Each structure stands twice: as C-alpha cells, then as structure tokens.
C-alpha cells in the first residue's frame, strides 16, 4: 500500500498565540521520520493538526493512499483514523479507570479494525507480554513504562498504516525511553508502518530515524536528509547544548 503524507505551509494558533508558522514536511511510504525540537516549538500542535483535533488556519495536509488524495484539514478525527492514521498522544492519555483490555478495545473503533479485534489483541499481548499479565488491571494503576506500551498497543489496535507518535519519552526513565523507542522501531519493521515521531530526546530518536526535521518556533529550521546529516548539524548542538553556531 503506497502512502505519502505532505504537509505544506501549515499555520495554527491558540487564540493570539501562534504555534505553527508555515510548517512544510513530507513523509514517504515506509519511512521513519522524526520531528525534533525542544518544548514549546509546535511539535504536538502539528501532531494534533494531523489527527484533526486542531484545525490549521492556513496550509494543506494531504494524505495520499494508493493514489487517492485526502485533505486531512477537512476531515474529522474519526474519518482520519478510518483512513489508517493512529496517534500515540503525548503523555499517553490512556483511560485510567478502564482496564488494560478495555483500553485496547477502544483503539479498535475503526470499521476496518473491528473485525480483527481478537487478532490484534493477541498480537498486542505477544509484543508486550506485560499487558497480558495485567489485562484486567486499571490502566491508571500501571507504571509509566507499562502505560506507554499500552498507549502504543492501543494505537496499533486500529491496524494503522501511518503511526504518529508524540513524545514517547515524556515521563520515562532513560532505560525505558530507549526500550520504547526500540519497540517503535521493531513495530515499524514488523508491520511495514510509516512512522512520524515527534521527540525532544535527540539521541534516542536518531536510533530509529531514516531522516528528520528540526522545528524551532513553529517553523522547520533544518531538514536532515539522512540520519548522519541530522546527527552532525550545528543547529542541534546550539539547541541542545547551548553552544553558539559558527
């Protein structure tokens, strides 16, 4: 299945505060693209625009699936999910008072996924065995790492082709961050997903990135055409280490 996401000139604001000032990027079929940036630069806003929960004030978001173009700025979240897009939201946003299994089933409202609920649940348990052990436990009572696994598994329940991941490292210990990122990489290979991941943990994100973008103040400040290009550019040093770019 050929899939292509094109974001061009997207602007978005919360009242008077402008969060995105003309973002353009592109994600090709089967790629893992990372969107790097520190807090408050618009990563999550872009993710919300992609899933339809924030409406851009200008620009286009086009998702091409097998030659058919869909304008995501005109679709509801439900319709976007039906196209095969799934979001692992920032801070996980599980349903804390529902069980692990119910959380998983709630990811499967997409009509294409409803028939495959049993298969997908079995698959989730195979990938994350800890979820099976805890399937009748309330999601809110699990540890941060387990919750992150559940959030990823919930997104996979809709049998997506494009997986959006918003800051999987938030609130996790360094070891768990590394495990989570590795898990995303595995899933991508296993299911042939296309992945767009927003992340501020630059080193971890690069482990699975094919290429990426750096977003600063709502604008794409740098485009790295390969992992090496991203790893070796001066802007990263400036943003993360405070060293002046020369």
């Amino acid at each position, binding site marked *: 299945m050929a899939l292509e996401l094109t974001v061009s000139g997207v602007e978005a604001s919360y009242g008077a505060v402008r969060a995105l000032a003309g973002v353009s990027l592109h994600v090709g079929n089967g790629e893992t693209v990372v969107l790097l940036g520190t807090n408050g630069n618009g990563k999550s806003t872009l993710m919300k625009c992609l*899933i339809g*929960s924030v409406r851009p004030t200008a620009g286009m978001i086009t998702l091409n699936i097998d030659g058919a173009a869909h304008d995501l700025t005109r679709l509801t*979240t*439900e319709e976007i*999910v*039906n196209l095969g897009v*799934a*979001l692992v*939201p920032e801070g996980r*946003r*599980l*349903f*804390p*008072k*529902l*069980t692990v299994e*119910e959380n998983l*089933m*709630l*990811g499967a*409202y*997409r009509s294409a996924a*409803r028939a495959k609920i049993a298969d997908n649940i079995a698959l989730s348990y195979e990938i994350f065995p800890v979820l099976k052990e805890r399937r*009748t436990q*309330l999601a809110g009572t699990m540890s941060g790492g387990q919750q992150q696994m559940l959030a990823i598994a*919930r*997104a996979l329940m*809709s049998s997506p082709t494009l997986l959006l991941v918003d800051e999987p490292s938030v609130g996790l210990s360094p070891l768990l961050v590394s495990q989570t990122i590795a898990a995303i990489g595995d899933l991508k290979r296993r299911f042939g997903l296309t992945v767009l991941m927003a992340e501020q943990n630059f080193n971890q994100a690069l482990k699975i990135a094919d290429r990426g973008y750096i977003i600063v103040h709502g604008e794409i400040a740098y485009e790295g055409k390969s992992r090496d290009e991203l790893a070796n550019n001066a802007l990263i040093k400036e943003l993360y280490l405070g060293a002046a770019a020369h």
Partner: protein
Amino acid sequence: MRWTGFWIGAALFLVLAYASTFMVTNTFFFFVGYVMLQFVVLATAWNILGGYAGYVNFGTSAFFGVGVYTAVALFKAFALPLPLQILAAAVVGTALGVATGMMTLRLRGIFYSIATVALVIILETFVVNWKFVGGAAGIQIVRPSLPSFFPTYEGMLFVVAAVLVVIAVAVARYVEGSWIGRGLRAIRDDELAAECSGVPTLRLKLIACGISGALMCAIGAPNPMYQQFAIPGAAFELPYSVSPLAMALIGGTAHWIGPVLGALLLSATQQYLSVTISSELSLLALGVMLVLFVIAAPEGLVGLLRKVGLFKTGTVRPSNEKGKGT
C-alpha cells in the same frame, strides 16, 4: 456477558408481578409498586447517559412529561390502546433525545447540564399552551375497559411498569457490556483521548441520548392512566428530574444494578415517609440520603457491597466520583 441468568430472573419477576394482581387485594400495594417501578425505569434510563458517559442530564422530567402528553394526545385523538401509546412515546423520546443531543452535546460537562434544564421549561411552556391536551388546567382521563386477563386496573398498570422495567434494565445491561458502553466509559474518562483514538464520540453520545430518551418517555406514557388525569405542573415536576439522578448516584452508576437498587431503596423510603409523615419530608429524605452517600459511599450501594465482598463482578471500577474532568 451471560444472559441466561438474567432472563430467568426477569421471567420470574414478571410472573410474580402478574400473579400478585390476583393474590394481592390491597390496591395500595399496586399504587406504591407502580411508582417504585416507574423510578427504576427513570433511574436506569438516566444512568445510560449520566452514569456511563458522565453527561449529567437535569431534564429527565422533560422526557417524562413528553411521554405523558404523547399518550394523552394519542388517546384523545385516536383512542389508541396503551401498548401503542407506550411505543409511540418511545419513538417520540428517541427523536427528542437525538434532537436535544444534536443541539447540546457539543457542550461539555456542566454546560450540557444547564441546557437540559432549559429543555424542561421550554417543553412545559409548550404543553401549558396546548389547549387540545387540556393546557394549564390539565385533563381528565377516562380509562377504557379493562382487558379480561387482568382483575384490576391498578394491577394491569403495575404489570405494564414491570415489563418496562425488564426492557429498560435489559437495554442498560446490553449497552454496558457492548462497544457502546465501552465508548461511553472512555468518554467519561477522557473525551479528548477517546476522540484521538478514533472513538466516534458524538455518535455514541447521540445513541445514548436516544436510548435514554426513549425509555424515559415510554415510562411516562402509562402515567395518565395511572393518575386518571394529566396536568403539566405534575408531569414536568422537578422531582422527576432530581430523583432519578439521586437514585442512580446512591445505587452506583458503574453497574446496571446500581440504579435499580437506588431507585427501589429511595422510592420505598419516600413512599413510606409520605404516608407516615408528609410528602415534603420525603423530598428532604432524598437530599439527606444523597449527601450521606456522596460522603460515605461515593461509589454508591454497588461500591459499598463490593467493599464488604457481597458483590463481585469483573473489575472494580470506580464511578466518576471526581466528576467530569473537563
């Protein structure tokens, strides 16, 4: 979810209700019984939206009143038999529920609740000015002849209410265990996250509104036959809005049995106090019990029974004691 036990229980309940119409000679039993069953239906119906999804509806009396007047209008115009009046009221209730939902469900939390209060006032005003059904002065209902297989009118209405209880509870039980209930619980937990996961939140809320409205209107329909008159002030009375809410909260909103227990306990207490002391005091009792339960047992009777180990089903699921987080 297993249904065999439920249907056996329901069948037993209906047989007992029917048998009691021959065995019990004191009509007061049926008067009290009818009111209690009426509140079981209302509390159960309220809980489908208010309990599962956390959308607090203060407009139960609007739906109840519309059920009453649908029956009155159809009886006066076409002398429609009671079962058809109930069916028509359910259809009107579904339409009213979905229409109200479409207008108000984009409002979240407390704003939705305020909108439902307005619904009562609007609909009551409409009926007060509708001369055909008696307007503000009300209307006398002359009961049609009694079907031969029932010994008394009170007995028949009691059985009708019992049938509606079984329907309402079965519907609530189905919703709770199905994809609808799961989605509604997700909405209560975190509506934004539900939306992001692709849960069709608006559609689910409209379904819940329609089902809830249908049941509330349906139980309103036999009421004019029971009272032998209908008057807007009584049909749209505030207690019809407040009691089902209090009953569901006292019983526990997380499980279908909660509203049933709450309605039985509260309406029995109210009936007892009305007869022994005064009907004003029965309203006070409702308030006091609600306060006591909110403080001592925020998860209602169901939560209380779970704590002492008398009630075990699936997961311990805290009800929305913290209210909706919007």
